[in-house]
């Protein structure tokens, strides 16, 4: 089921950036080049802007940062067309439920509480995000999963090692494991998630592992399959979305062994 975010039929399909006039294609760019600040460096900045499809490009600011680097701000017209009809949107494929409806679904169809185990893994100690989803306090005016009577929530906190998380998931008979990753320098979050899925693959019999849901502000939700998780949530996720997804995945949809 697609949600309401499809473009209306009469919206233009090919658009360009807008500075102050329709179709002017204006953009702003900034970057640093490892060059001393001189005319050649400004030329290099223009070359890069041109390669990015900006022409004419105007270096409006260039500042030496020590003898080996120069910072540039460039304005100009980009010639690429944005093809709105070709935009791939990761559509929500489940219904948004109120806490009441989510609880009812779990009660009626699962017949027992839905067990979730949450953590920040690896060296990541940013708990605010996972707390926002799990703790009763919640996020953006929505209560967290602890508020849902039919959800059993175990929030293990920060810097939980993957083996420990696996043990706890087994101990609590987790239906779903929720993992947060905020530090992304050198793609630490991707490496950690790969380690996570490998460990769960090893620890559980084929097709029996809990749902694995990861989240954090720099994740790309379309990468779930690639990372071997069931679902990825990005920045601004609300607890209701997560609860609704869990209900959808656990209750409404029979999980196929071949999926996991």
């Amino acid at each position, binding site marked *: 089921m697609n949600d309401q975010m499809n473009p209306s039929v009469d919206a233009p399909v090919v658009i360009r950036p807008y500075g*102050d006039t*329709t179709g002017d294609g204006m953009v702003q760019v900034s970057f640093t080049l490892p060059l001393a600040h001189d005319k050649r460096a400004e030329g290099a900045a223009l070359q890069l802007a041109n390669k990015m499809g900006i022409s004419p490009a105007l270096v409006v600011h260039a500042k030496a940062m020590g003898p080996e680097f120069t910072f540039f*701000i460039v304005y100009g017209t980009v010639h690429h067309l944005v093809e709105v009809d070709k935009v791939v949107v990761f559509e929500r494929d489940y219904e948004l439920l109120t806490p009441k409806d989510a609880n009812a679904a779990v009660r009626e169809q699962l017949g027992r509480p839905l067990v979730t185990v949450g953590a920040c893994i690896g060296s990541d100690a940013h708990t605010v995000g996972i707390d926002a989803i799990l703790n009763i306090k919640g996020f953006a005016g929505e209560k967290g999963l602890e508020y849902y009577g039919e959800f059993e929530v175990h929030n293990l906190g920060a810097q939980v090692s993957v083996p420990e998380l696996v043990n706890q998931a087994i101990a609590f008979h987790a239906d779903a494991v929720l993992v947060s990753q905020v530090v992304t320098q050198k793609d630490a979050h991707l490496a950690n998630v790969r380690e996570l899925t490998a460990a769960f693959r090893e620890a559980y019999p084929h097709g029996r592992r809990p749902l694995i849901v990861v989240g954090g502000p720099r994740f790309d939700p379309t990468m779930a399959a690639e990372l071997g998780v069931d679902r990825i949530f990005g920045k601004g996720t609300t607890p209701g979305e997560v609860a609704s997804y869990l209900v959808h995945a656990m209750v409404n949809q029979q999980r196929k062994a071949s999926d996991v």
Partner: protein
Amino acid sequence: MTNLLHLPADDVTRARALAAEAGAPVVAIARAHSTSSVERAVLRLAGICGADVDGTPWVNRLVDEVAAQVGLESGVALPVWNALEQSEDLVTLAQRAAAGRVDFALPTGPAREVAMANATRAVSLGLERIDSQRRHRELLVASLATPKRPWIYLIVATGNINEDIPQAQAAAREGADVIAVIRSTGQSLLDYVPEGATTEGYAGTYATQENFKLMRAALDETSAELGRYIRLTNYASGLCMPEMATLAGLERLDMMLNDSMYGILFRDINPIRTFVDQRFSRQIHARAGIIINTGEDNYLTTADPIEAAHTVTVSQLLNEFFAHEAGLADWQIGLGHAFEINPDTPNSFQLELAHALLARELFPDAPLKWMPPTKHMTGDIFRGYLLDGFFNLAGMLTGQDILLVGMMTEAVVTPWLSDRDLALQNVQYVRNAAAGLRDDFHPSRTGLIAVRGRHVLAEAIGLLDRIADTGLLNAIADGTFGLMHRPANKGKGLAGVITKDPYYFNPASLLLEGPVSA
């Protein structure tokens, strides 16, 4: 009224007295003259409009023809209403005149009386329309929420009225209280007002009656939508100042850029022409309930904002004097000043505060217009955004009334949609975060800020003294303001200056000089 700078009351009184002394002779000159644009404004009040195939307005064709045949020393009204045939309208007369089919004459005796009466009746209709627009504004303002001060003033400048309108509406939705449609470069030197809706302009949109009307209608819609009256402003300054003022009154613009000396200094318009035009245009604005904005900020784009700080004060005092003389009430006198000190100057922010406070304390009832940094904006948009934040803060700390919102791309492009949006967020952060900080800001009497404020006032008095002595026209010729030398017998539009003869008749002036409802 506060006195945070501890200004000596005597100094304040003396500064005003000197401004009056310097301004009085110029008022006398302004009374003794008219200009081709004043005469055109009279006919516009009487309803003339439209243009010939080349785009020359009929009002220009008509006035030029009258000037050529009988001169304008007695005003355009007598020959025109004398020449009007039974129930003929002004446009038809202009067309006949342009075709060389009208002989103009200065009527005398009963014919003169009839022409005077008819002209007065015709012009009254225009003034009535202006009055009714004023009442309409008052009604709207009363029925809608009053925006808190400072009013947020944003510019649009696409060159195309059809792009301007949605951008202006968007700006209003995002918090603008005043929309200024920037005028196409060079329009101030056109000796006519272009006609119709326009879609081509350079770094601004032509000011035309139709554009005024379209934008005002659009903003009326948006005002209703937002429950907040959005003011519209444009430029009176230039060779057509009296006509611009008239059109603004007729189309219910709310504010107009109208400085007593801007045209002289920055557009090399003849000084006499400017003083005559500004007086008439201000009488119209007074009548129309329009707030004027003066242009002291411009000095600081060429002169040094520290060295020349007192010239701003002097100009404000003169602008105030001329404004009062033309019938404007304090609440209509939007004196200008600007945040233009080089940001690398030590204590630059404190100096800005001193200057801004000086204006605030000298003119407690004037809706001061606070202009953002422009000269020292660079392509570094981040630094620009920060500087604009400090400009906003200075505005809050010193209680400015109209805040022209600074754009981070000032040195790069005419503002983009996103620049305006970001700029508004900047204002909103500062306004909200430092809402009451003004109450905790008390420059110490002997501190940098207060000392500087008193010093600038003293310098202003010194300069006014000199001007009162040598005469304002000579001072202008000498490069006192904005470093420009503008002798009284030079400059653009000199040919349109008219020395009134004893028979001069101008129904609009007669009606306007009467008691004004404030």
